[in-house]
């Protein structure tokens, strides 16, 4: 049986309101009453409810209008609605379902049927909430919001974005000399700091592979200045690592160094995988280039390397210095590469 829920009843008729309230309270639920659609909508926007029982024919704002408002409201879109009405034409019932109502109960409402339908709707809501919670835990907030807004659909779109790759230099060697618990603890602290720097600048971490990560700036959320945001995030990451190193350095323990590669351009962004298991990611030349730039930081002994397109979008005071064109493996033309210093 469904656990007690907080329900809102919207009905302009006092007898109907009181009777529904009574039936629901007898089932153990907490009930709030609204006299019309407008008041119901105000209440829904003010406090959380588990489900709405909605009448159709109401003055000020009728049930159809409430359903339309709910459908447009990101926060309220998933609220289960059971329409209760004595309206007799089938077209109205169909319209309610099309407008997003989960179920329809004809008035006078049979208490046994009410209990069954309510239980089913609340159980579905509980599963949906649980699923959302899982998505939030295993995806970033931006991806979860994007999924929420546009629904899950494999397939992508071409967008302009800035891609960042970062990893810890020589981490494998370091990890071999450390107890495994300490390695995971180090990675967790490190990732907490890196995530904070990246999301603080509007980026989205979309992959973690061992000690490396990939982040996207400008998708799925558009950013005013994806290049600048990515570079500032990278600088903050380097500063974080410097702070992070202070304690092990004093204790004579090994310190970590990271390399960051940033490239901007057209990418194909979207969900890849299967319907069962998918991830939001970006693919394309720009992504490969960011990965190559990150690898190149080791070769040239620089912390942050960016491509020419990223550099071109930066303010003149960014302090990016050219290290000349570089011919990367798999690229037909050489790429202008710039180095950015951590502390500006």
């Amino acid at each position: 049986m469904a656990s007690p829920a907080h329900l809102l009843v919207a009905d302009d008729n006092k007898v109907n309101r009181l009777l529904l309230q009574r039936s629901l309270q007898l089932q153990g639920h907490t009930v709030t009453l609204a006299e019309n659609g407008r008041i119901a909508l105000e209440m829904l926007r003010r406090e959380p409810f588990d489900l709405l029982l909605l009448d159709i024919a109401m003055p000020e704002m009728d049930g159809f209008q409430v359903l339309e408002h709910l459908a447009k409201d990101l926060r309220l879109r998933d609220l289960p609605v059971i329409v209760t009405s004595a309206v007799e034409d089938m077209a109205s019932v169909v319209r309610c379902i099309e407008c997003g109502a989960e179920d329809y109960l004809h008035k006078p409402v049979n208490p046994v049927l009410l209990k069954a339908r309510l239980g089913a709707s609340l159980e579905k809501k509980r599963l949906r909430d649980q699923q959302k919670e899982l998505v939030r835990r295993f995806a970033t907030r931006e991806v979860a919001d994007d999924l929420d807004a546009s629904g899950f659909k494999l397939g992508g779109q071409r967008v302009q974005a800035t891609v960042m790759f970062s990893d810890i230099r020589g981490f494998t060697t370091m990890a071999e000399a450390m107890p495994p618990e300490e390695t995971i603890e180090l990675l967790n602290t490190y990732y907490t700091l890196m995530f904070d720097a990246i999301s603080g600048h509007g980026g989205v971490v979309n992959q973690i592979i061992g000690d490396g990560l990939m982040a996207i700036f400008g998708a799925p959320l558009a950013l005013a200045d994806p290049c600048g945001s990515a570079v500032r995030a990278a600088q903050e990451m380097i500063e974080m690592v410097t702070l992070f190193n202070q304690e092990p350095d004093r204790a004579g323990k090994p310190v970590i160094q990271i390399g960051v590669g940033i490239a901007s351009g057209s990418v194909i962004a979207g969900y890849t995988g299967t319907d069962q298991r998918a991830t939001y990611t970006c693919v394309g030349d720009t992504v490969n280039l960011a990965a190559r730039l990150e690898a190149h930081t080791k070769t040239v002994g620089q912390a942050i390397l960016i491509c020419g397109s990223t550099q071109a979008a930066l303010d003149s005071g960014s302090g990016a210095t050219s290290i000349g064109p570089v011919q990367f493996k798999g690229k037909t033309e050489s790429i202008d590469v710039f180095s950015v210093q951590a502390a500006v």
Partner: protein
Amino acid sequence: MKQEAVIDRSTFAELQDSAGVEFVAELVGTFLEEAPGMLAELRVARATADAERFRRGAHSLKSNSLTFGALALGAMARELELKGLDADPARDVVALDALDAAYAQAAAALKELSHG
């Protein structure tokens, strides 16, 4: 038209069974407070030729009547809801007079049943 019962006893008993005898007595009280307003609404809607208001008033009265098993009253209200305003206002006035009478009967029966 088939003659409907003033109050269908089994519907009323079921309501008492599921919601509680005392609660139903209170609910009847609420209906008796609200219904005269609904009947007056119908008169105003008729006088101002407000079709939407007329339908909504008849709909509300139908819905409550059926809740208590007031089948005759419910059937008359339903007829007005589905038909809407009549082209001839005089016919609606006759129907509304009949509705008032049916309400008076239903109200008396409901009072007796809920205190019985």
